[in-house]
């Protein structure tokens, strides 16, 4: 039984078909990169996985259950822009994820609970390389630093699925390399299943354990909206990492835990 099952999903806005007949099985811990031309529905598919939109037809199962119809804490997300809260400091941006679920009335923790949350947040922020700017506001950070913050913010929730919508699209190449390394490190340590939309093919090939290519198979020149995109290629990649992940999964839990964090 696969972790995420996509069954015959169609997405249609008015008479514009975006996705058609999508079928996909993804195991837990896979790193899927989604590539394709602009406007071919990669981001739409990501929004469906996020629960921001509902599919016109078909269904998506997460662990055998139909996906919740709205975003929730089981799925973390990083967008290209506007992923972090401008009014909160770096530290509070991450601590917010610990405060919100625990305080349904005020959405805010006090005293030792607050200190605790901030400490956890600070540990994670040190790990993503933001340890020296805990008290800054996001506007004072560079683009790369803001995306590190957004990733930390998503990971503090310990989601099972991480959705990335062109997270490094606005960064320059050097920074992008660092971000790739960080992302792979975090992916190795956690059991995250990652879906990442990217415009950069080489990024898709280096990062993913599986590359999904979205493309329109049928095109009617008189009705451009009549047919949607499908997954035309589904390519397994980076077999060493896949094998490593599979081997780790085969080990007893105690051992596997130490290996993952190593």
């Amino acid at each position, binding site marked *: 039984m696969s972790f995420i099952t996509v069954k015959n999903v169609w997405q249609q806005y008015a008479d514009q078909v975006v996705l058609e007949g999508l079928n996909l099985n993804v195991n837990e811990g896979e790193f899927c990169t989604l590539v394709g031309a602009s406007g071919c529905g990669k981001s739409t598919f990501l929004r469906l996985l*996020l629960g*921001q939109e509902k599919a016109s037809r078909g269904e998506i199962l997460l662990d055998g259950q139909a996906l919740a119809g*709205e*975003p*929730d*804490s089981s*799925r*973390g*997300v990083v*967008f290209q*822009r*506007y*992923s*972090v*809260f*401008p*009014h*909160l400091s770096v530290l509070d941006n991450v601590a*917010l*994820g610990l*405060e*919100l*679920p625990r*305080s*349904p*009335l*005020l*959405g*805010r923790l006090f005293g030792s609970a607050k200190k605790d949350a901030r400490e956890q947040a600070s540990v994670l922020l040190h790990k993503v390389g933001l340890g020296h700017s805990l008290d800054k*506001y*996001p*506007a004072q950070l560079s683009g790369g630093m803001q995306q590190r913050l*957004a990733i930390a*913010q*998503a990971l503090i*929730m310990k*989601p099972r699925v991480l959705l990335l919508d062109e997270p490094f699209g606005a960064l320059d190449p050097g920074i992008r390399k660092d971000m790739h390394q960080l992302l792979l490190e975090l992916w190795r340590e956690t059991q995250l299943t990652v879906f990442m939309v990217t415009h950069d093919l080489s990024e898709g090939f280096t990062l993913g354990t599986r590359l999904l290519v979205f493309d329109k198979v049928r095109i009617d020149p008189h009705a451009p909206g009549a047919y949607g995109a499908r997954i035309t290629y589904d390519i397994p990649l980076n077999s060493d990492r896949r094998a490593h992940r599979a081997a780790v999964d085969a080990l007893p839990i105690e051992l596997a835990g130490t290996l993952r964090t190593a």
Partner: protein
Amino acid sequence: MRLINRHPDRPSRLLLVILPFALVLLAYFLGSAERLTDNPNDKLLPSAVQMTDAVKRLAFVADTRTGEYVLWQDSASSLRRLAIGLGISALAGLCLGMAAGTLPLFGAPLSPLLTVLSMVPPLAILPILFIVFGLGELSKVMLIVIGITPALARDLEQRTREIPVELLIKAQTLGASTWTLMLRVILPQLLPRLLISLRLMLGSAWLFLIAAEAIASTDGLGYRIFLVRRYLAMDVILPYVVWITLLAWLMDWGLKRLTQRAFPWYEGARA
């Protein structure tokens, strides 16, 4: 060099700031002097001395009938009405605007209603307010509230919608409920925008205050101006207008400083 690329340096900027004020004052006092030489009893353009005398009488000599210092008494009454009116409007505008902007189910009935309400000329319903709320403090405060709340609410609704949807999604993935999302994500981002909105509304608020005081009141800055109008007492009216302008400018400046100090993360605060 093109005009668009020419910037004044510091001293010349200061000069350019002062210049129009100086010109206006100069024109006034030249006109005043000319009229007063023609007719020493002219009341239309009082001289600086006449106005200073009037201010001294109103601000530093107790009124023989009530024992109060008229200018300060008037200022206190007006500012109290203004503060209560602005406070209620800010709170109501914030709640309505946030609800209409965040919750589609609230926005559907609220937005059109607010649009229509903001088109009602508040002064046209002033008589209704006097009939319903009487001639006391309440009707004056209500005129300010009714006058600026719909506009405030509409502005804040718009500002709420300008918050990127990505942030709202992100908050939901961080475990926020509708309530905590509004409390921790939307409200803090709206507060600086509320202060800016209030600054823009100050002019209208003063307008409504003075209109209400002019028609039915026993004290207040607007009341005094309309009272002494009967005697053509320009020597009182002009200093009062200057005083009101100064108060309004100080409030504007105070709100601006508050926005900058309280919300250092807000880039719009610098404007």
